């Protein structure tokens, strides 16, 4: 029995807010450590959680697939920035996804464009505001509804920030309030 162990999997998310001229205005790296059930067998998921939690380490070590995940994601103390990538690669991926986003935008008039592209382990979800501002989220796991809600909240926060008359289209967002609220929203949905 190797399933049923609730792994504390660290997922990283990268959010970018871009102006209509694709100038980055804000970026956020968010790590969520949501307990995601590993490939669970239906039998073990019925077991009370205490029955496995005490041996979680041993059990996951025994299971091939999950131990790989374990080793990959939670190396003692250090958390990877995402796929062992440098920051510039993450930004490059976000930038590259703009090609597809623009293409999808031509076809689709929706604001939430769902997953538009995939680069290695990264799925890129995008949200385009009516003012042509683009929100790009790089994520690893599928979480359509959460991301939709997250984007909607960020949009609302963003609109509030834009109400500031001194805020132009290219002003980077340095508001601590905005930052903390986006973080809170990310914590809630991602």
């Amino acid at each position, binding site marked *: 029995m190797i399933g049923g162990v609730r792994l504390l999997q660290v997922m990283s998310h990268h959010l970018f807010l871009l102006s209509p001229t694709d100038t980055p205005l804000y970026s956020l790296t968010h790590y969520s450590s949501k307990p995601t059930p590993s490939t669970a067998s239906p039998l073990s998921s019925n077991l009370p959680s205490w029955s496995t939690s005490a041996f979680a380490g041993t059990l996951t070590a025994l299971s091939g697939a999950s131990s790989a995940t374990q080793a990959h994601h939670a190396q003692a103390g250090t958390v990877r920035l995402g796929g062992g990538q440098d920051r510039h690669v993450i930004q490059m991926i976000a930038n590259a996804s703009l090609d597809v986003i623009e293409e999808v935008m031509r076809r689709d008039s929706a604001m939430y464009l769902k997953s538009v592209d995939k680069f290695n382990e990264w799925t890129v979800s995008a949200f385009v505001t009516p003012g042509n501002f683009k929100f790009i989220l790089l994520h690893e796991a599928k979480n359509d509804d959460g991301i939709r809600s997250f984007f909607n909240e960020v949009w609302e926060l963003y609109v509030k920030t834009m109400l500031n008359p001194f805020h132009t289209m290219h002003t980077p967002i340095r508001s601590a309030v905005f930052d903390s609220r986006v973080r809170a929203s990310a*914590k809630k949905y991602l």
Partner: protein
Amino acid sequence: MAPLPYSLSPHVCILSSPDLESLLSSVSLPPLPQVLQSFSPLPNVNTRTTSLTTVSHASFTLRFSDLVEVEAGCKEDEEIRASRILDWIGARIAKRSAKWIEDEERIKTGESVGRTPWWDELRRCAEGDHIPSRIEGWNHPVAVVLAVSTTAPNPLQAVTALHSRQLELPPWVDSNYLKYTLIVHPENSPLSDEEAGALFNAVKKQYGLNAHLLPLSLPSPPPPPVPVPAPFPRLPPPPSPESLLSPPPPIFSAPPTPQPGAMGSSLSTQEMSFATSLDGVAAMREEESAGKLVGNSLRMHEKDIQMMARFVREFLLMSVIPFMEKCTIEWNESFSSTRRLPSRLFSSTRRLFGSPTPSSPGHASKPSTSSVASRTSISSITSNANGTQGLGPPSQYRRLAEFATILGDIKLAVSVWESLRKDGKGGSEILPLLLAPSPALALHAQHALNTLHPPSPDPPANVQVRALIYAVRWTIGVNLQDYLSSALEGERWLVSSAGSAEEPHSALLLAHAALLSAMKRAKRRAALWYLFAANRLEKCGVRPLTMYFLRKAHSLYAFGPEKNLSPSLWDSEDRSPTAWEGFGDVKPGIEHALGRLLYTTGDVEGAISYFLGLLRRSLTCYVSPQPVLTNGKAVESTANPSATDRIYLEDFRVAFKHFLATGGEESKIASWKLPFSFCNPRQTKIRLPSQGVSGQDNVWEGRQTKWELFQKSRGKNRLENCDKAAVNETFWIDIELHNPLDVEVNLSDVTIVAQEQQSGNLESAKDILDAEVIEDITLAAKESRSIPLALKVARPASLIITHAHYKFLSLLPVTDSLARRGRRLQETMLQRQSKIYAPDVFVKFDVEDASQRLQVNFIDDGRLVMAQGECKRMKLWLSNPGIKSIRELWMVTGDEDELWVETSESFPSPPVVSEMISSSNSLAAGEPLRIPLDTLTKSSSIEPGQSVELTIVFHAEKSLNDELCLLFVFRETEDQPFYSARVSRQYEVNATFRAKATSRPSQSPNHLYLINLEVENVSFYSDLHLSQITTLSPTWKCSPVAAGEALGPVHVNQTAKFYFNADRWEEGGSEETLQFVHKKLGDILHSRSIEPTSPPSIRLLCNHISKDQPRSIQDPSIQHFVHCSRRNFVGRATAAQHPYIPSSSHPYVFSLYNPAALDVVIFWEIPSQQRAGHISVSGLLLGAGHAALKEVIEEAENAKVKRSMYAETHRERQDILKAIRASEWNAEMNPVVVRVEDGQQLQHDFAKGGCLKPVTFVLRNYSVTHPARFVLRLKQDKSAVHSSSNLLPPQYSGRLTYRGRLEPSQEVTVKAKMWLNRPGAYALTGWLVETEVEEVQSGQEGEECLTRTLHRYLQGPSLADRSCTVVTNVKSG
């Protein structure tokens, strides 16, 4: 449809006899397969489909290979072989990459044609694989050619030997092939032609019709070489144990340098079109290798070539194609018969009965030429058809599909492939080549890759090779336009094929995907893929290509997106459309990798340029908040900007040190520029010793303006700027250095560069300017610091400071410009439409000879703490360091500063109680003060080198912290310009007394007013003594009620009170003053211009009270201070009350003393500290006024209102009117004061009844100008007494109304009677006085004066009036 890839062509294996091999080598020809390969592809070949339709192929490719080689290859483990292939490809790429890049940089091709040499190389390596695979049947031989020559001792035996040789192919290789016999008959053969013909006939008889006699001339000295297509590179055989010891022999199949230009004919037509555009490259490369056309040429005679070509064509048309067509037809029959059953039913049946493996005996049959005929019965499906684990030959259907594909029977091929795919037996990889482009093809491709192996980080080599081969086939077999279309997105197939393997081939796949993306204008994605490719290639150590890919990624990223945005967006946002910054970390990330690669490849200079550019990063960094874990722990990552800055800086330092150590060129160093500047030119300024004094700039400017205004009236001698340095005098320049980096840096040898203003030469000031050089400065991260540099100039000059010079990190010499951008010009339309700036502004300074100079210092320059009102003596030290004497010296002070220059003259003060002083009565601020030099020095001048001492007395009445700023203006003679010097000193004033003076009408009939003065000690000085009190007024005379007994010490928080009687004193110029002010205010109200005339002087009466000898107020210093403090008081009050009258015209409108004013000067001293001073109390006005400006104001109000466009103007006029109406000059009040004699105590025997008692009312007219009529009415009702009062209401009797007239200052007594009927306290209220103020208009002489009523007033007792008469009952008798 694009032609099929090379690897999807019939594979023909050749087994040649040893005699043939030796024959070929003797005439310098390569082995037979290679010779034959040179004749492929063949043009214009027709095939037939199963429906007997003819398909014509423009070119038909055949692949020839050595059977022995194939046999050996099949024996090798597939996985080992695959990994060998990968290593081999990697090695080939690594070996050639440097040359490719060199060529690529010389001739920029590839980009436009979508082909690069490395991609060609990879493709040819992948296509060249000829060893049969278990997965697919393409490399399985279609035909085996047994070749002998007639030079053999016994040719027939040789043929028999070859035929009898068992093929050593493994069982999983398809054994269904065509056997063919080839007899080569050279001219020098021992057999004659007839013999050869006989041999051929014998062979035909024995081994079937599939045979050919090939007569060749093969001349012994080989003819000149004929160029032929280069063969595809093939993996060299595995090194045998013995060959490991000796160097491997050269292998024909893998020529060391493939010549892309010569491979045209072996390429598909699609490639041919590309090849033509590569002609330029090819031509050049041919030139390079001229004369050594060895690898791809045949030394064959023309006739032999024709014979050979005829053979190959005959072989194909007469044998191979018919064989394949026959197979296809047979297999198709069995295929279509099974197809009639729905495959769904079929598979479910199989599932139900569990018999999935019908036997397939056909493939076990012996290979022979007749095998085709015996194959008619072959049917059904082989179990391990998909062959991934296959031990048997590939399934018949698969072979059918392959043959149909080769023969161009697309319809059949597609249907078979589709059915194979549905059964999960492959086919997805070929379908994209055959089907019309649609999004389904992308799914086929993805499926083909997925079935190879589930995605994993490290797939086995075999899978990687397969994926590579698929990807290569797709790129060749699909039309490029379709391949790049959005339906297919072929470049993504390449990326999927590359997977996550970190091998050169996967990097090249990514790079090709990037190239195709860039062609599709998806440049951002292309940049990313180039970056991925570079990352993988770097790990394999292929540096030239890595750098090329990084550069590509960099240039594609830097390109910036093309946007369909409104052109006016850029204007509205004030940005340039080309100034796109993008993501902050991308460029540095790429550049850093490039820099490091350059450094490791020895290009230190290139590396340094990149590292220098990287330091710009902090400036463009937009937002990089620290990533935070949800549990709140910060994550250490490279995102920390200071960490990356430190890395970049360290790399730069190391590279630069290496550059210096290896003796780099000096000229290179000069070309490197820091991407940012440390200097902030806006904060750069010259600091001269004369400007070293504190004080705000506007204060000093005010002093200078004051001097200039003063000087304007006197002459034209200008004031020279004092911002000139003197020759050989040290002065300073303050440079602000700002470190924009997130890391500590040091700068060394910091100095400045200046040039002479007229000269264009940068070095012109080098000889005369001695600038300080600061050896080393360390700036912390983001620190700003102002650095003073000492300067000294050797001769008079005008200099411009142009640059700052320093060494960054003590290594790189940097020159920063100190120019500031000029202001933005907005004068003309053009300037307003675009941004145009005035020329750059530099720091300039003049150096002159030290002719006229003055240094002024306070002798005691400690902190100055004064008591409020203290007269502080201060000594100034004036010295002349110049070379000319100073004969004229002026001191310019602030308008409110109270300063007195003390001279040796002493003023004898006569002991008087009362004295008279004259005042200019002007509000004008004090003029600059000329210092009497004759009293200071004997020669009445300050000679060069001489110093004099000047004593000034400073008096300050406001308690505050401030700075005393004195500007000294001096010159030598009348005809010379003035120079200035400055001195300043901080001071602090502590409060001493809080004094308050109030007045009220006097109760005493002898005096008009009673003045009450309260003086409270609010200081912390315990022994503060009041020494004298002086009153000053133009019209009032004061006498103390009690003579000075309250004078003396006043302790902390104690209050001393003084009373004075004030009486009218007629003298002075009060009438003229009033007329002056009234006229000027009238001018203002009528908007007339104000003449700059001063008010007439006025005389003031001073009365002193003092315990000892009173100090005379005529002492000039005291008179000066009193004047100043009065001026400050009136000036401030006037400015507050009349904000709309400009303060500069106040002296010409208002006078210093209102004639009704009464000022008090309080002299104090602290005997223990020998300190003394005085404070003034102003603001008291005595006497009644009668709205002197009433008529003027009414006139102004009723005047025809000029229409003004602006509401503000109208409002301002209203405000002026209001202010003047409320001002002291328009005071208006009831001049008649009623006094009731209060406090009488009467006795009466009420037993005798009531009595009448007198009540005295005294009415006095306080007006000194106007008479007044009055009516005194006495009321009898009870309402006369306020309800809260417990006094009895008065009952007046007898005459109740009194009328009269009061002349100015006249007093009248009215005696009324009150009826008392019982004892008690009777209030003395219940009266009412009506007053009419009259104005006497002097009529003609002898006529009666006309009077006119100006104002009417009504007054009664106040509510608080408690005056009463007490009557007690006394029994008489």
